[in-house]
């Protein structure tokens, strides 16, 4: 039936085959066989996309990282030399530390802020839907635009932040938000948090609203305080959502290079350099494709762990 499906004339013949119920066992195995063929026909475009655009490039990246390939010239196999060089490189070690700080602080802050936002929006209030729509707006704005917008807000001479602080006499001097080594990372993380919090609030709020109200009533009758209700009713019910959201967001936060690329380009003095940006600069700035691939692959061990856990979770309800 697989192939027939595409030939309108054969439609009726297929119908007869389905309608006839004479020899069940043999026909069943034949249908199964045909189902298999049809399945692979239907899956061909998807499989091609996956193999050609993800699997193959990923393998190439691994292979490239073992070469000294430059843009526009073929590479030579050099074993683990790229990786060895990396682990003696001060900029790389700095980047590794930055990436950990960046990811952990950003994810933790988004989590706390997102949960707060969700709890607030879960309270009974007039116009709550309207407030929710407004609070989730950053999620819909492209990251490039978010980053450019904040770069303008942080601007030394005419940015909103400095002008605001000076107008209200909160500071006398111009603060160089993005080029002060002590402030730059904090500012970048603030932008990441601004853009990323709504995703957390959305999933948490959906989780909160799925908790049966009876549970709270029962807890209240048993004399549980509001705090106790939160820790003994809300948190256990949201645990799965917490874990899934944090893991997904960790992958996306750690590998998004747009914020740093637009806000600071990794500066001042590599204070905000993180893996994906270093990989980008190495591959396209310094034109060292092999080394760039090596830098981007350093995240893979963490990624594998997250993906293994997430895959199991994301398929659980449907996979039988």
């Amino acid at each position, binding site marked *: 039936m*697989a192939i*027939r*499906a595409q030939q309108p004339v054969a439609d009726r013949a297929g*119908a007869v085959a*389905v309608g006839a119920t004479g020899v069940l066992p043999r026909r069943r195995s034949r249908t*199964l066989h045909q189902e*298999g063929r049809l*399945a*692979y026909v*239907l899956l061909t*475009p*998807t499989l091609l*996309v*996956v193999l050609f*655009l*993800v699997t193959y*490039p*990923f393998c190439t990246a691994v292979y*490239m990282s073992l070469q000294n390939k430059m843009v526009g010239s073929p590479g030579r196999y050099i074993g683990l030399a790229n990786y060895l060089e990396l682990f003696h490189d001060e900029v790389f070690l700095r980047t590794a530390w930055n990436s950990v700080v960046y990811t952990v602080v950003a994810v933790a802050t988004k989590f706390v802020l997102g949960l707060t936002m969700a709890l607030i929006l879960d*309270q009974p209030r007039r116009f709550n839907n309207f*407030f929710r*729509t*407004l609070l989730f*707006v*950053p999620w*819909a*704005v*492209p*990251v490039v*635009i978010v980053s450019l*917008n904040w770069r*303008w807000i942080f601007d030394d*001479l*005419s940015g*909103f932040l400095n*002008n*605001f602080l*000076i*107008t209200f006499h909160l500071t006398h001097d111009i603060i160089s938000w993005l080029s002060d080594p002590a402030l730059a990372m904090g500012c970048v993380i603030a932008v990441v948090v*601004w853009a990323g919090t709504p995703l957390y609030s*959305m999933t948490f709020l*959906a*989780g909160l609203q799925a908790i049966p109200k009876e549970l709270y009533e029962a807890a*209240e009758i048993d004399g549980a*305080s*509001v705090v106790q209700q939160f820790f003994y009713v809300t948190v256990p019910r949201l645990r*799965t*959502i917490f874990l*899934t959201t944090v893991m997904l967001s960790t992958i996306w936060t750690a*590998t998004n290079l747009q914020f740093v690329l*637009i806000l600071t380009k990794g500066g001042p003095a590599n204070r905000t350099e993180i893996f994906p940006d270093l990989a980008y600069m190495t*591959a396209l700035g310094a034109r060292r494709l092999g080394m760039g*691939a090596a830098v*981007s692959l350093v*995240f893979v061990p963490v*990624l594998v762990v997250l993906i293994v856990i997430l*895959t199991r979770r994301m398929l*659980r*309800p449907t*996979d039988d």
Partner: protein
Amino acid sequence: MRSMTGTRRLLKWVGNGLLVVLLVWTLVPFYWMVVTSLKKDKEIYGFEATLVPRQPTLANYVRLFATTPFVKYLRNSTIIAVGTTLFSLVFGCLGAYALARLRFPGRGLIARGLVVTYLVPPSLLFIPLFAVMSTLSLIDTHQGLILAYLGFSVPFATWLLMGYFRSVPIELEEAALVDGCTRFGSLVRVILPMSLPALAVVAFFAFTQSWNEFLYANVFVNSVEVRTITTGLTLFVVEDVFFWGPMMGASFLSALPPLILYLVFQRWVVKGLTLGGVKG
């Protein structure tokens, strides 16, 4: 009992207070973007944070349309986002139907593979993909960029639709098959009409993700004829000098399509996120 209502009231006011803080934190940057785009250069580069433009002007927008390739960028973004959306929908529906309804060896493996694929971030793939695109002469083409975007949108579409198709009662489809429908016919006439919300979610994500994408667009495209809006915006910076007026205007206009889609599809998107993005 009295202390309970006291706590409730306290929580309510704390909640309201925090809500105001969060609203300010969320909306002020966006407001600043719009206001900047309506100011004259003299006011933009002054030393005062004027919340309302003194002499509102559309000069920045005029400049944008008259002297920059902004319209071209918009056109390219639209072509690429629409193309990606259409292909993702078609490929996603076909693949998801197979995974949801047909029994065949390797089904579980493929389903798992799709999720893994979806989770592999572009920042791991752009370097080898750059080499692939160069070899196939797909650099600086709309097709090349659409192809690259299918890498993340097709796995997501297939996986999300797979979950949704499974929730369509199998009896409906069996009835159609008995009545003489082909498998393909039942996908088109039974499953798809019942899956409109899921299709909307897939279309929304495919469109906005390709509209917002930056990394591939930046690496695989150099020419103005193909450049999309996200990378085009960064070109308003000339030798580290930012033209903030036109740039904020362009930012505002380019943020509108995803924003409007978000407002229209809001309910479905949140449902899709929780149904797809965060299951269980």
